[in-house]
């Protein structure tokens, strides 16, 4: 299997706070990697760095064999190949669902309006959102909005999807519909890096689970091993707290 994503010694500080302290991670094509860890452990920052939304201080990020942290790379070209979905959906509130989805394919990929619409309607239909195409985001439920955000990222036909706690802002009864969409993506062979607090979901979907603690990947392996028999005391502690909160 060829490598979709390769991180080496990635460091990132915000002021004096060092959020990432040398992260190494390799993700193969069609692999689904879940990042778990406490809030503030650096999961979101890591994903934002891979998308180049945050410049890194040290290290290397390689996507499909191209070092995207090298000087002089075309940031916009790289971002088109990496889809990211945020916790707070970040849909464009002044545009209909259809325009949210077609905007980037038209502007960044140069698709005609007709081509972009056709593709978008196909994707929206696939995820049960066809009749919402002309609605505005604020008239949609949180689950629907997040599904639209996923469709919006998919419309760019990315090689890699980054999902940043996409169910954390949702009411519990809306979580399932979003997870269903992600399952379908995984079944379709999409390479994904998923930051999540949904441990049972991670166990289900992940090929590999990485436990982030204080800015490093402390432990990684198959979900069964990490979630059931973690070696590191910090991982055991974290999972113990999750179990006490009734989320595993």
């Amino acid at each position: 299997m060829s490598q979709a994503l390769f991180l080496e010694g990635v460091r990132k500080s915000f002021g004096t706070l060092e959020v990432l302290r040398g992260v190494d991670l390799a993700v193969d094509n069609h692999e689904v990697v879940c990042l778990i860890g406490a809030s503030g452990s650096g999961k979101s920052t890591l994903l934002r760095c891979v998308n180049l939304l945050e410049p890194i201080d040290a290290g290397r990020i390689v996507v499909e064999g191209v070092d995207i942290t090298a000087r002089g790379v075309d940031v916009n070209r790289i971002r088109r190949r990496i889809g990211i979905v945020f916790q707070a959906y970040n849909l464009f509130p002044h545009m209909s669902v259809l325009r949210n989805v077609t905007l980037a394919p038209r502007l960044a990929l140069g698709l005609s309006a007709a081509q972009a619409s056709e593709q978008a309607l196909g994707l929206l239909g696939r995820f049960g959102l066809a009749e919402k195409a002309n609605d505005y985001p604020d008239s949609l439920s949180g689950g629907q909005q997040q599904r639209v955000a996923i469709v919006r990222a998919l419309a760019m036909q990315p090689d890699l999807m980054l999902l940043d706690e996409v169910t954390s802002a949702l009411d519990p009864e809306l979580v399932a519909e979003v997870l269903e969409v992600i399952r379908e993506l995984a079944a379709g062979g999409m390479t994904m890096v998923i930051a999540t607090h949904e441990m049972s979901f991670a166990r289900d979907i992940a090929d590999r689970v990485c436990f982030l603690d204080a800015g490093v990947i402390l432990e990684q392996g198959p979900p069964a091993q990490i979630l059931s028999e973690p070696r590191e005391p910090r991982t055991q502690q974290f999972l113990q707290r999750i179990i006490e909160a009734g989320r595993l």
Partner: protein
Amino acid sequence: MAGESRRRSDPALDGRRSRILGSLTSGAEGRRGALIATFSTVVVFTLLALLVTHAPGWPEVKKTFFDWGQFKDSLPDIARAFLLNVKIFCISEAFILVFALLLAVIRSLPGPAALPLRILGIAYADFFRGVPTILVIAMLGFGAPALQLQGVPLSTTFWGIVALVLVYTAYVSEVYRAGIESVHPSQAAAARSLGLTHWQSLRTVVLPQAVRRVIPPLLNDFIGLQKDTALVGFLGSVEAFKQSQIDAAATFNYTSYVAAALLFVALTVPLARFTDWLVLRDRRRRQATGT
């Protein structure tokens, strides 16, 4: 529609429904309220009218400022001259809206390479917000024609418009900039994460939201501009203020000023009410969606 009725019955919101009528609710309670409101309004205004008209010196004031004959004589000329104010307003506004947006965008450019542009933008805004408008108008209106350079227009109205555009561009760009900054960074992040360039994200995602939010304060600046068109009369262009000055000088009666004032008010009041209405509508909409 459930939301509609809930909003209507919320007294806190009803209180803001109309600043003029206050919180008049329907039903028996409301009828009593309306009665009291009408009564108190009539009493207060009658008292005020009596107080003014019975004040010592009122006949003099009336003759000097509120002479009906003078008013009728001077109004047609002033109204004609007022068309020039409207023209100055419309032409300046068109340029201001475009230039101010440009200036605001320049000031929001990212990256170290754009620093000189940002400095220029800041210097411009600081300078023209700091200098009195009348000074800029005098400087350009008297100074530029005095250069006697070929191709430089001599029209005072032209230079008046240029001065207003220069000054108001600085103000309005601040309004736009506030709007741009009010759009949450996550919106730009979402746009950039999809592979849009900075410019594309600004044009399609940030600016449309920013402009929508600042329409009320923009209109507020329009009201200021509408009034400041009178400053161009200082250069000699015969607009409403200058015309009323001419009439006053000829008759030693100042009713013509009142006539000009009424014309300005007639134009600004609808705009002010429209602005209020927009602000109210915006607030209701935000409360309805709960954000």
